[in-house]
């Protein structure tokens, strides 16, 4: 059986604006809105041609699904995505603290 190669979605991989649109299913307008609302930030916002770190694709896809499935307007999407990011950050912090506790916080 052929073994499939994977692509990392992390900070060291970059995606162009068009690539992020194509892969997330968001239109360029929608993506620019998310940037305007401060949900997504290009690597260099002064650059003529925007690019993003690949981990942002996870967030952009999430935004697309929320808009499509929950019938949210752009402000609503921005708010939900921002809150989800906060939840994710807190979960990461919680996992880190648990890892540091003797017994993993279990006993």
């Amino acid at each position, binding site marked *: *059986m*052929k*073994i*499939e*190669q*994977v*692509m*990392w*979605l*992390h900070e*060291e991989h970059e995606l162009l604006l068009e690539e992020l649109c*194509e*892969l997330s*299913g968001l239109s360029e307008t929608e993506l620019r809105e998310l940037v305007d609302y401060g949900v997504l930030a290009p690597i260099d916002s002064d650059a003529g041609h925007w690019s993003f770190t690949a*981990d942002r*694709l*996870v967030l952009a*896809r*999430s935004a697309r*699904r*929320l808009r499509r*499935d*929950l*019938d949210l307007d752009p402000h609503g999407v921005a708010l*939900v995505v921002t809150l*989800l990011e906060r939840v994710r950050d807190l979960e*990461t912090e919680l*996992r*880190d603290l*648990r*890892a*540091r506790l*003797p*017994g*993993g916080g279990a006993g």
Partner: protein
Amino acid sequence: MKYKDYYAVMGVERKASAEEIKNAYRKLARKYHPDVSKEKDAEEKFKQLGEAYETLRDPEKRAAYDQLGSHRPGQEFRPPPGWERQFGGGSFSFDDIDLGDLFAGMMGGHRAGRRGGKVSIPGEDYEVTAHIALEEAYRGTEVDLELTVPEYDESGLAHRVRRAFKARIPKGATDGQRLRLPGKGGKGLNGGRDGDLYLNIALHPHRLFRASGHDLFLDLPLAPWEAVLGTSVEVPTLGGSVRLKVPPGTHAGRQLRLAGRGLPKPHGGAGDLFAIVQIAVPAVTGERERALFKELAEASTFNPRGHFAQEAAK
């Protein structure tokens, strides 16, 4: 074809109004949306909800669905005679057709004939969680994946096919890491690009190590005298055991860092391993041990609670 009770999925009555159906969708979507929900099986439940809503929100699809009658969910059934001519736009075999695919392919109450269309439709993306052991993340591994994706026949009707393949997860992954397998999702239509498969990496809990990002944490129990006098201990790591020097006067909770002994990072380097000191208290049963501890207690001027008295004196 297997029957699905879309009204039951949405928790509404068969005579529910369009407004009631919409409200039920909104309520359940908030509960089960995979991006928001922590419910078990949220993904699957949301998929069922979406399928039910897509059919019931459209008056013509709903009418077509209602004419199928009411059956037990999962029960094999055949549409009433003439149904496919009225709604399907042709006759075809229903044997291996998924009810959801049948309605998804309808437009305005008639089958859209996806293949003949001019609009290119990108293939659907899929998400799968791959559970791997910490050792596998350390070395890199291969995972077996299986997906059920729709494929379209000449008449544009979807058939569910199982696709199995192996994916190589290079070393460097950690908990929550996302990977993308380009083109491994659903097939695109009319020149649309193929969908992607997204892998979410989840680490199995390990007996010894706890991961946070690429750093690892390990409990290191020390005997009281080892902590006081200092020692050198053998510590397990994912790359084999190493010697760790414990300095004299090491207190409980101290994190001794073993640089670069954590999980490898995707582009070189590695996280660290932290050994967290715990003072293990022996169950003293021997006469001699007990006598030595008593002697120590009498000889020592150490007061671990000196700061209590200082606070009280203020």
